């Protein structure tokens, strides 16, 4: 840690841990309901649990991105956060809006469109809050000593994420138009601008952890985000096959979304190559594991499992089944949850000054949560494929099929328990690090000297532009 105001990131990360734990509780509620045990039905009906589960996920991912930005931007721009107090207020406001939304779900206050369940008045508050955050980051970059590609990509991703929230608020009476705009948020987030955020954070982590030349990493960053938009924008069409929109989306969406895995493949190859080439100079090996893990698991979850149901001929049968849930879990985990956990793992020792690096419990957290998530994905996959065959291909009654696949939800619950053990270990490590009382390293400090601070690069900040 080099700047006082980076400490703020800690509070965002702590919020992540809290919301993530709650998210898992609601996951279990739904898992049990699917397995036939809906004892909570009268207090927390399935739809409440679901809205809570997914909104908490999005909320902690966003909190993680914000924390990451508050940590990364000062170092990239070589100055303190422009308005450190605003950052704290803005976190507080985000938490208050979030809690209101979650409480609202439990008393039936919904807007009721998948992933955009929070009611309209709260939407406005979210937008204002995020714009304050963006302004703070923008001012920091603007007044900073240098503008790097990493910080620009991260900033552009965050800004676009805020702006793309707006189409989801366009009022309409037509279900098809409603759905059309909903995907501008949901798809253009996870398969568009969030990938920029991901690219930016990964580039920062790889530069710090592998010591590879910034120029090389940032060049690949451009290629990867270029591929993302080249495929991802028109790839939105894979959600426009069967919702009452013209037929040309079948081939446009099919063609471009089939190319989307390339960006994730690029990310995986880039992460692995950089980690190999860079040697393992940095002592925080666990952070490198999470970083490379993100590159690999996002390819599996988003690239591979996304491709599995993206062609219109396949999607015709899998559309709106548990196959989607299978992909949704692994993709969100691999790309965004792991990403946030990677930056947390990297930043915590620096923020708190306790260099706990790869203790057994940190290694345990990494492997157990990942193996657990792979097992969960398999459980969803078996349930989903069975559902597709029995319901969509053979025409069995919905509820009869659900009874058939109940057993796979016991499998899911088992796998999720393993996953949860890993997450508990992660949170234990987080708490063990203590509060953000780490010392500010002056540039003379040698012990924590980051590999990227080679004089050659420092001498040529312009080249990094």
């Amino acid at each position: 840690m080099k700047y006082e105001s980076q400490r703020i990131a800690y509070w965002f990360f702590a919020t992540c841990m809290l919301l993530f734990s709650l998210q898992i509780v609601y996951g279990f509620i739904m898992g049990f309901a699917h397995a036939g045990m809906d004892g909570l039905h009268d207090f927390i009906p399935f739809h409440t649990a679901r809205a809570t589960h997914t909104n908490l996920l999005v909320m902690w991912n966003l909190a993680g991105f914000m924390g990451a930005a508050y940590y990364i931007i000062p170092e990239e721009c070589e100055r303190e956060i422009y308005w450190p107090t605003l950052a704290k207020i803005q976190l507080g406001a985000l938490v208050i809006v979030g809690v209101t939304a979650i409480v609202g779900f439990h008393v039936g206050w919904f807007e009721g469109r998948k992933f955009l369940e929070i009611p309209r008045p709260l939407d406005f508050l979210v937008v204002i809050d995020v714009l304050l955050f963006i302004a703070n980051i923008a001012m920091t970059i603007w007044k900073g000593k240098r503008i790097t590609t990493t910080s620009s990509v991260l900033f552009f991703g965050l800004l676009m994420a805020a702006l793309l929230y707006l189409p989801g608020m366009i009022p309409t009476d037509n279900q098809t138009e409603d759905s059309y705009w909903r995907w501008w948020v949901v798809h253009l987030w996870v398969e568009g601008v969030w990938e920029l955020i991901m690219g930016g954070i990964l580039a920062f982590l790889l530069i710090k952890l592998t010591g590879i030349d910034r120029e090389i990493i940032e060049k690949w960053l451009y290629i990867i985000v270029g591929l993302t938009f080249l495929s991802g924008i028109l790839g939105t069409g894979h959600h426009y096959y069967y919702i009452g929109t013209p037929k040309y989306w079948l081939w446009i969406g099919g063609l471009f979304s089939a190319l989307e895995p390339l960006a994730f493949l690029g990310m995986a190859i880039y992460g692995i190559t950089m980690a190999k080439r860079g040697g393992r100079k940095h002592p925080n090996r666990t952070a490198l594991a999470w970083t490379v893990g993100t590159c690999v698991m996002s390819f599996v979850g988003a690239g591979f499992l996304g491709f599995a149901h993206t062609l219109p001929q396949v999607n015709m049968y899998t559309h709106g089944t548990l196959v989607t849930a299978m992909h949704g879990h692994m993709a969100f985990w691999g790309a965004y949850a792991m990403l946030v956990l990677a930056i947390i793992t990297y930043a915590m020792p620096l923020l708190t000054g306790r260099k706990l690096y790869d203790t057994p419990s940190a290694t345990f957290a990494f492997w157990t949560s990942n193996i657990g998530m792979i097992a969960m994905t398999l459980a969803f996959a078996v349930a989903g494929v069975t559902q597709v065959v029995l319901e969509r291909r053979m025409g069995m009654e919905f509820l009869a099929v659900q009874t058939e696949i109940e057993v796979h939800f016991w499998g899911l619950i088992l796998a999720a328990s393993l996953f949860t053990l890993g997450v508990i270990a992660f949170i234990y490590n987080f708490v063990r690090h203590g509060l953000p009382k780490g010392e500010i390293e002056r540039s003379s400090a040698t012990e924590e000297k980051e590999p990227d601070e080679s004089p050659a690069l420092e001498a040529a900040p312009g080249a990094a532009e």
Partner: protein
Amino acid sequence: MLSKSAARTFFLVGTAACGLAFVLLTLDTFRQIPGQTREENLTEAAIRGKHLFDQSNCMGCHTILGEGAYYAPELTRVYERRGPEFIAAMLRDPEAMYPGQRRMQQYDFTEEEIADLVAFLEWVNGMDLNGFPPAPPLAAAAGTTAQATVADGRPAVFNQMCVACHAVGGRGGAVGPALDGIATRFDRDYFTRWLADPAAIRPGTTMPKLPLSDQHIAELSDYLASLEN
């Protein structure tokens, strides 16, 4: 090898071109949506129904147009599959149709609200969705209800309501008993009385009183009386 500035140009040009194409396609799509979704049939009631559908978070359990949750049935073609009476009965009392099965929330809708929701589902049912949801291609081989037609002698209402719980010839739900050979145990008159009010004949039965017209009951009684083996 590609330089960094070439990589940046690739990113900027690619993004701009795809963004522009996407905006143009969006404009054309919005031109076509009213026709393809039969917006002329989008009544005031259906619009109220849509917003009620959202506020009740129906998508939190069901899918519609294939979007939503995977806990409860797809609703895109439910109007055709089950008919308005069945839907209304479900909305009045969620445990009416599938007693002892997975439960829907009791929303306490008014009759107007129920009519609005049914109107919304009727409108969605009429959309042109490029072939979704598909007819199950393996239905014939699997011998499931989806393949059953009126040609089998099944009245349409049987395929809408009864199959939700009962099977005939292995086709249909498993909530209630299979009805094969039922005619050997009861006569037509019994079926008529039973369908009018199951609990009046066997108190405590889990079979609900279905929203059936006299005409429906007559058709169903004829059909059940024909099920001799």
